[in-house]
């Protein structure tokens, strides 16, 4: 126990619980040691929340790992400086045996990926009791009771049952709650949270952030938060250190930083953050024509079992969805993970089996053979979320951009080279990049290459599935600019699939909100984002972190008991929602008892 009782998150006691001075971290590379953190100094004050903010490669996570003594061995090491606890314990260069008494007991850490941070073959209960027993917090017979109390502490529903469950049976949000419970098990003075909500849905993110704040108040824990998301910074931080390329760029209280950043870099970083309600106006596309028309589109996946492996149930991933996209228009599909938005994108390209009707550039895609599908696919191409994983590491990027042209027999020889070179120019790269391999490029450049590849066939539609979600904000802004430019020049239509409301507002003409495989609200960007009608849409928008420290987001209302699943036994189907026009093409799902169940507690 720290004995700090109730200390509020904001407004802190002026004694540092952790002092970092002149910290330098080096990583071994083939070309010699390289500093990823250089001469970093800061004090962490008791009870406060300090955010280390910065883009990828800024060294913020390395700093956190160094404090925990968890730097990847043997590549990375603390090359200089000191990390000192309040009682004078020096952590830099501390032996592994001594560090074990610091971890969990005095400093705890939660990580970005709750999906992979728990041992998949150990029950939640065992993983919790393990840390209690390791540090002698209680006896073996008391441990299960303590574990249960910890789970209740992090507001997990059905805590008794969770103890016996395995991580894969829990949702991402619940797993992060378990991680937090584990981290707080021994009442540490400091909690390091490394991008704790980046992998979570925005509504779940809001819940987890609320939880961290509440627990911090209850336990008086000091929080060191690492994040790239300026919205999260504004919501959580008392003080902020902005980092770039391993160095501190700016250190300030959160209010002054957002109101008037001292440095150029911080200014640019903040300017690049998309903010809800500040999107620039967009040209009005001609909606009399349509380049994509989907009608009553459904995608179901069979679940088999039993003696003869019969279909026993179906996942209704997409259920009776209809939409149209005009040339030059962007339709955004938004919703939480698992709502079916990505599946729609795959259906449009014929990557999953679907029923209903899809017309692309006037051509019906239903019933086409693979050979018949090929020319249609020229009109519709896809850009994926992870540009690193969607490029082949063993082909030059030039070959990969040329591949669609070769496959469709559209160009060869010098004409092929010329067209690929032109595509590289089009996405802001140069033709001499063509002979290089994907690992030689940054994330943003790789996504440009993926866009060039999608553009190679001069498609009329591009499905962009979370295409900018993995990119840093400044890079994200550049890629979005590129996409906008291409749209204006070529009249491209986009199906923009995203969970990020602020980005959606930047790019979309129209927005459709999905839940459990169905569209529950659709309309123009102004209608849906500016005047949301459905409880689910409102909840989604309310959860978006606002990059403004003066804004106090109301706590997200608790979720209904069990999330309704899209799995239905054979013979039963989800009830189709009916969209009623409330004026000007703004259509909202009417009350539906079944969906109502899913949203119980959503209405605020």
């Amino acid at each position: 126990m720290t004995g700090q009782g109730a200390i509020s998150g904001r407004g802190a006691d002026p004694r540092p619980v952790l002092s970092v001075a002149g910290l330098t971290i080096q990583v071994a590379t083939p070309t010699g040691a390289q500093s990823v953190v250089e001469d970093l100094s800061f004090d962490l004050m008791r009870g406060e929340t300090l955010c280390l903010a910065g883009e990828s490669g800024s060294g913020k996570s390395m700093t956190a790992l160094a404090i925990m003594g968890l730097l990847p061995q043997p590549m990375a090491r603390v090359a200089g400086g000191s990390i000192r606890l309040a009682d004078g314990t020096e952590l830099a260069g501390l032996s592994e045996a001594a560090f074990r008494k610091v971890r969990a007991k005095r400093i705890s850490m939660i990580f970005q990926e709750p999906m992979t941070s728990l041992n998949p073959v150990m029950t939640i209960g065992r993983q919790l009791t393990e840390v209690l027993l390791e540090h002698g917090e209680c006896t073996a017979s008391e441990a299960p009771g303590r574990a249960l109390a910890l789970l209740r502490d992090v507001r997990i529903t059905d805590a008794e049952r969770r103890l016996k469950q395995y991580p894969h049976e829990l949702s991402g949000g619940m797993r992060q709650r378990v991680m937090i419970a584990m981290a707080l098990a021994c009442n540490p003075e400091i909690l390091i949270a490394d991008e704790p909500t980046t992998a979570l849905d925005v509504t779940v993110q809001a819940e987890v952030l609320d939880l961290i704040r509440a627990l911090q108040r209850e336990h008086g824990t000091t929080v060191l938060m690492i994040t790239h998301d300026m919205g999260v910074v504004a919501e959580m931080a008392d003080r902020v250190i902005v980092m770039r390329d391993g160095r501190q760029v700016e250190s300030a209280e959160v209010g002054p930083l957002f109101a008037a950043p001292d440095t150029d870099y911080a200014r640019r970083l903040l300017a690049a953050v998309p903010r809800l309600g500040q999107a620039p106006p967009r040209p009005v596309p001609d909606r009399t024509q349509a380049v994509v028309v989907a009608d009553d589109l459904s995608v179901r996946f069979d679940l088999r079992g039993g003696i003869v492996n019969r279909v026993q149930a179906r996942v209704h991933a997409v259920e009776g969805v209809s939409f149209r996209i005009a040339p030059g228009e962007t339709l955004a599909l938004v919703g939480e993970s698992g709502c079916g938005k990505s599946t729609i994108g795959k259906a449009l390209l014929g990557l999953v089996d679907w029923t209903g009707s899809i017309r692309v550039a006037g051509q019906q895609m239903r019933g086409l053979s693979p050979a018949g599908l090929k020319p249609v696919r020229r009109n519709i191409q896809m850009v994926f979320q992870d540009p690193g994983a969607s490029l082949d590491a063993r082909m030059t990027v030039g070959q990969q951009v040329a591949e669609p042209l070769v496959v469709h027999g559209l160009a060869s020889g010098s004409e092929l080279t010329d067209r690929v070179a032109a595509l590289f120019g089009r996405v802001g790269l140069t033709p001499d990049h063509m002979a290089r391999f994907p690992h030689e490029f940054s994330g943003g450049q790789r996504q440009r290459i993926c866009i060039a590849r999608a553009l190679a066939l001069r498609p009329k539609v591009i499905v962009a599935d979370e295409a900018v979600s993995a990119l840093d904000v400044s890079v994200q802004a550049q890629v979005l600019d590129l996409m906008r430019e291409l749209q204006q020049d070529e009249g491209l239509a986009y199906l923009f699939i995203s969970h990020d409301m602020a980005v959606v507002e930047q790019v979309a003409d129209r927005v459709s909100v999905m839940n459990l495989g169905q569209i529950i609200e659709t309309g123009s960007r102004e209608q849906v984002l500016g005047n949301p009608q459905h409880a689910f849409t409102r909840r989604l928008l309310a959860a978006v972190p606002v990059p403004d420290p003066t804004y106090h987001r109301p706590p997200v209302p608790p979720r209904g008991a069990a999330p309704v699943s899209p799995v239905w036994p054979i013979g039963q189907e989800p009830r189709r929602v009916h969209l009623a026009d409330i004026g000007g093409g703004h259509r909202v799902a009417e009350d539906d008892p079944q969906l109502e169940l899913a949203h119980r507690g959503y209405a605020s």
Partner: protein
Amino acid sequence: MWGYLFRRLMQSLLILLGISLVTFVLLYLVPADPARQIAGRSATAETVANIRAQLGLDQPFYVQYGRYLGNLLQGDLGRSYLQRTEVSTLIWARMPATLLLMLGAIVAELVMGLTIGAVAALKRNTPIDQSLMVFSFVTISAPQFVVGILLLYVFAVRLGWFPIGGYGTFAHLVLPALTIGLLGTGWYSRMMRSSMIDVLAHDYVRTARAKGLGKLRIVTRHVVPNAILPIIAMIGIDIGMFMSGIVVVESVFGWPGIGQLAWQAIQRVDIPIIMGVTLISACFIVLGNLLADIIAPLVDPRIKLK
């Protein structure tokens, strides 16, 4: 679960049917004449023809196979041409010896293989790792009869620690089980090493460290249980490798198992015994794989049999 088992058993029957057909075809095509073998070199052509007719060997292929299959469905593996005994009796009598050898070999290869693999992964890229991997390479590459004879020479002839051959006590089991087990040790140590290295890089190992756990506990509770998951499936396949090894090893050590029985039958073209041993081996392999698949969900809660 039961539906899964039922489907798997049906599939297994099909596999066994296929194996019986392939083996029968191969033996039919072998240029040796069982009737001549039975009659002896000095027998007249008439005697040989009589024996041939008696055994039904003059019938067309499909009749012979059909009759064989018919008997098989009634659990009759046929009679040995030369030993004048039911094949099932012969195999049954030798089964305990083979099962004992199999058990000894599997225990040996798992204990040695998993330990060596785990140590090599934890000492990755050190001289310890490199020597262990050289050792595993040698055990994989060396032919089993060479390993067997070498072990016999060193530990039985020179050192006199173990008997030279035969069957009966634990001491008799050690060298043949080691001979077969060494091959498996090589495979398992390489697989365990790469599986451990893979698991060591997982986020949950970092979580375990962040909890302040000791290295031993991290390895035994978090790394090893995850690292052996892909290896369990291998144990099923391994039983197949084992069956091919016993023919040689049982002969080298004079171990009275079905491998030795097969070896003798092959030399004398005793087709019913060859067929019987082949089918029994196939059963082992099929059952081994089935067993591995049934065990998998018991150790990995994410796997469900459907």
